[in-house]
């Protein structure tokens, strides 16, 4: 794992200094994280990176996993989907299974800590065993803006007893009697998919993937999913083809285990057929450095989502200093201020207009990319994410004042 100082080049020396000052006030405190998985998924990815940094800062992080059978995870999957806005049928037996599983976890799990960060619905019920004097924070990574009432009412019974809740975007907030803080997710600037690459490394990877770079590349990186609108991207590109010299690249994961993904991939390939300037490429899920190189080799990055959670791929592209054209959905408007740090669109025609305009106005495109990179540096790097968690801990430990002088 990278050391704290290694983040200095990306985040700035002042950001590292701030982390040291804040953490000095929390030195020796135990911060417990509880979630449902140690590998896979965004939460585990962040914790795997963040906890060693906490240790380096003199804090004692702990990480516990909630345990349950397949039936428990089937129920919590339903919770997740219902909170995310997809209608689910929950029975009284489902809710009881949740209570019983949490109860057996409480009997065995060590929950001793000064501060606890409980991630998502699965472990939310552990609040029943909160130690006296501890400060507990419910960290919800899910977009709750279209949540299903019965599941939310059930969870709210637990969440309302926390000291604070943390959500990723203001639109995800819910009425509840606890303070809610906004902590957006983050990207790791030192991870394979974001780390700096030399021009030679980028060129070598493009050669290996057999992607020609003789024309400016307009790229969308996302799985082949209707909500990412790959067909809309192709349609937009076809609208501008008579007027520009460029190539469109759609890159996504192979979709063997996802029937809908295979279908969308086939549709994208059909739409691209016979058009030598449209490339549809499938890469294995481990292709992080390859994606990094492709983004760096591109002139414009597209994320034409129709629905999105936070859409952190936008920050990944902005971090590479690229002008990004993205759908104005989910958390994307938090990452892009229209015409300042990127372009927000809502239609195929609007996307086409901005593709053409950015190709024809490279100086403006460059400025959008530069602004975007600085916006990510300030707001969407792992160091800011860690800082916000530490500030919440400090806020709760310091008597909940609006103004705290260290």
């Amino acid at each position, binding site marked *: 794992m990278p050391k704290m100082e290694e983040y200095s080049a990306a985040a*700035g*020396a*002042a*950001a590292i*200094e*701030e982390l040291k*000052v*804040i953490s000095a006030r929390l030195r020796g405190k135990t911060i417990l994280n509880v979630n449902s998985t140690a590998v896979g998924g965004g939460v585990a990815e962040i914790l795997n990176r963040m906890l060693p940094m906490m240790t380096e800062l003199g804090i004692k992080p702990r990480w516990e996993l909630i345990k349950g059978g397949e039936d428990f995870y089937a129920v919590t999957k339903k919770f997740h989907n219902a909170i995310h806005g997809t209608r689910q049928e929950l029975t009284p037996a489902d809710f009881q299974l949740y209570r019983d599983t949490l109860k057996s976890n409480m009997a065995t799990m060590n929950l001793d800590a000064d501060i606890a960060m409980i991630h998502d619905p699965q472990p939310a019920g552990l609040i029943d065993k909160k130690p006296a004097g501890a400060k507990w924070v419910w960290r919800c990574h899910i977009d709750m*803006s279209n949540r299903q009432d019965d599941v939310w009412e059930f969870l709210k019974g637990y969440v309302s007893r926390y000291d604070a809740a943390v*959500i990723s975007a*203001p*639109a995800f*907030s*819910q*009425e509840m009697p606890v*303070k*809610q*803080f*906004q*902590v957006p997710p983050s990207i790791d600037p030192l991870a394979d998919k974001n780390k700096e690459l030399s021009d030679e490394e980028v060129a070598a990877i493009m050669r290996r993937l057999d992607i020609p770079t003789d024309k400016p590349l307009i790229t969308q990186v996302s799985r082949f999913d209707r909500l990412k609108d790959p067909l809309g991207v192709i349609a937009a590109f076809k609208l501008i083809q008579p007027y520009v010299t460029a190539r469109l690249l759609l890159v996504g994961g192979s979709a063997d285990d996802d029937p809908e993904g295979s279908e969308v991939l086939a549709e994208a390939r059909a739409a691209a057929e016979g058009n030598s300037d449209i490339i549809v490429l499938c890469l294995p899920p481990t292709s992080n450095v390859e994606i990094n190189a492709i983004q760096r080799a591109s002139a414009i990055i597209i994320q034409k989502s129709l629905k999105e959670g936070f859409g952190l791929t936008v920050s990944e592209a902005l971090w590479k200093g690229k002008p990004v054209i993205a759908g104005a*959905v989910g958390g994307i408007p938090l990452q892009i*201020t*229209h015409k*300042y*740090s990127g372009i927000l669109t809502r239609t195929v025609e609007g996307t086409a207009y901005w593709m053409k305009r950015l190709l024809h106005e490279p100086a403006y495109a460059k*400025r959008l990319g530069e*602004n975007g990179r*600085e*916006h990510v540096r*300030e*707001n969407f790097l792992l160091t800011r994410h860690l*800082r*916000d968690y530490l*500030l*919440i801990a*400090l*806020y709760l430990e310091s008597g909940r*004042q*609006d*103004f*705290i*002088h*260290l």
Partner: protein
Amino acid sequence: MTVKAREPFRFRSRVTLPEVTGRKAFTIAELLEGIKRADDAVIYYHTHRFIKQFHHLVPEGANDFAYWVTNTVQADRLGEELTSIDIVRYNSLSDIKDAFVGMIERHLAENPAPQRTVAPGREFHFMRAIRFSLPTACEAVDYPSFEDCLRDVSPSSLYLHVFEARLRPPYGVDDFSHWFRKEFGDEQVGREISRLDPYSYTLEGLRARIIRIIEKRLGEGANA
């Protein structure tokens, strides 16, 4: 220019934690109601934090209220008026709040027709900023060490000392000008720094500008 200050200038930094209030506005009237109910932490978030968060942008925005009214509600005239509110010229957050309230009230009185309601998902969210003031390792005792510190401190620290400082006693005065006047009786540097405004520079541009002011003064001192 080799005189040492009795009181060193201790650079501090500002970080904020965003709190979601859950209050929203879908119309200009609701925006007005929300601003009327807002405490200092809300006004700070949507004005000072806005500038600091977008300090690298060229051209730069003005404040959250103006941005939403202009780009989402598309009430161009009011948006332009709200953009013109120069928040660093006010001595308190409640004065800034009164300026926004007065301007929106006037707009609503002059435009009694039904207002535009924005679509769900494009509403204004009222936020609060929990403010933390942090020490830094930078401390200056004279002009050269002040210049060295200026090169090192974060944009946050610059913003705190040049603009946010005006909200606390002595009101309307930035920390840098105050220090140069108090410690060295230097009216010229004080005047030049106090004339800077956040709408004309990015914070990096501001840093470069203040360094130039100090360098020029050092040059004059050396030639005196």
